[in-house]
């Protein structure tokens, strides 16, 4: 998977209309709430990325989210 596809996947999972980039602050995204975190945990799990709830606690940007799944990206 490429990073751009992952960001597009994250956008779909969070169900936001905002355009997302690595620099987008999570707190500024419409619908980045507790349900969004559950959805992302489920999405990452389906992609085969092992994540735990605490991994989401310190995240600031979409880039931080992407880095959680860094191991499955082809363009790294």
């Amino acid at each position, binding site marked *: 998977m490429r990073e751009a596809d992952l960001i597009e996947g994250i956008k779909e999972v969070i169900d936001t209309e905002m355009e997302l980039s690595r620099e987008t602050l999570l707190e500024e995204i419409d*619908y980045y709430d507790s349900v969004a975190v559950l959805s992302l*945990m489920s999405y990452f799990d389906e992609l085969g990325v092992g994540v735990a709830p605490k991994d989401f606690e310190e995240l600031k940007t979409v880039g931080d989210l992407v880095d959680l799944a860094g191991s499955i990206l082809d363009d790294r």
Partner: protein
Amino acid sequence: MAKISFNDIGISAIVTTTGGRRVTIDEEAERFGYDERTLKRLKRSMGFESRYVVADPSVCTSDLCVASAEKIFEACELERSEIEALLLVTQTPDYRAPSTAIIMQDRLGLSTDTVAFDINLGCSGFINGLYTAYCMIRSGLKKILLCVGDVASRFAYEGDRNLTPLMGDAGSAILIEAKEGIESHFVLHSDGSGYEHLIIPDGGCRHPFTARSLEAVPDSDGVPRRRVDMYMNGPEIFNFTIKVVPKMFRELLEYAHAQKEEVDYFVLHQANRYILQNIAKRLEVDASKLPMGTVGKYGNQNSASIPGTINAFLHEPFSSARQKVVFAGFGIGLSWGAVLTEVDRIYAPPIEHYQAGKGDEHA
């Protein structure tokens, strides 16, 4: 890992009684001060619509379960003296001690020869209760009444906007007896390393009840709760569920040498619609075979959620034809289990709402 099979034991009746008061999510939105976006999100993602709780706080688990059991005695050809064991799975007993099941033996007019005790389990409780009852039938008993349920509105703090809007009150009664030709396969698991993710911290011997137990203190998300109320770490429980439940299904089908296509219905503990959708997707099971509507309409009924779902949504197919089913429960403990079995035209009337009446201890 506990994997056990039984032959010629089955379920004959399932009755569920919910609390008598319906609360809608719109009413709770006002009480908890949800903004419009949060309310929309809860309705759309979680499927929240309403839930049923006891109308009178003096109504206990035993009252809901006794009402369900009485309906079985009315409808089935069954003498009270034939019941040899009464099991109650609950986290909200009438008293800290003794076991509520023993009090119910007397209220239901069962023989003093009855074996009766409580089992402290929540969302996995129906499966563990069924397993215990099947063991007792195999040991030689003939007919067993298994009761499961909670008045969860009593352990969810009224100011806890995360947990309270989720919880419903219900008590079910299930009649278990010898049934020729019915095979059942169980898988059961426990993992106490996650005990803190769903817990009522105070009131046991580890942290005895003190005046401080009643202070409502906001957690890191600003949600207030007392130490005598249930705490749930939602993300940890969600993560646990999506990891263990699909794996348990594969394990069960492999153990029972069954294919998922043979199964008519998957009746899972109704944690919330969102979790069930995630599980259904992973299992690649058609949504028509996996009911998800219980929480939205009745609330999370804990150990009564599987029977509650049958009485609410599957009373017709379960009453009219033989069905191959998987039941699965998962939650507090942490504890999870599943059974592949068959039900053959059982007594399963539509779900009832509690009305105060004769035989109520609290009345």
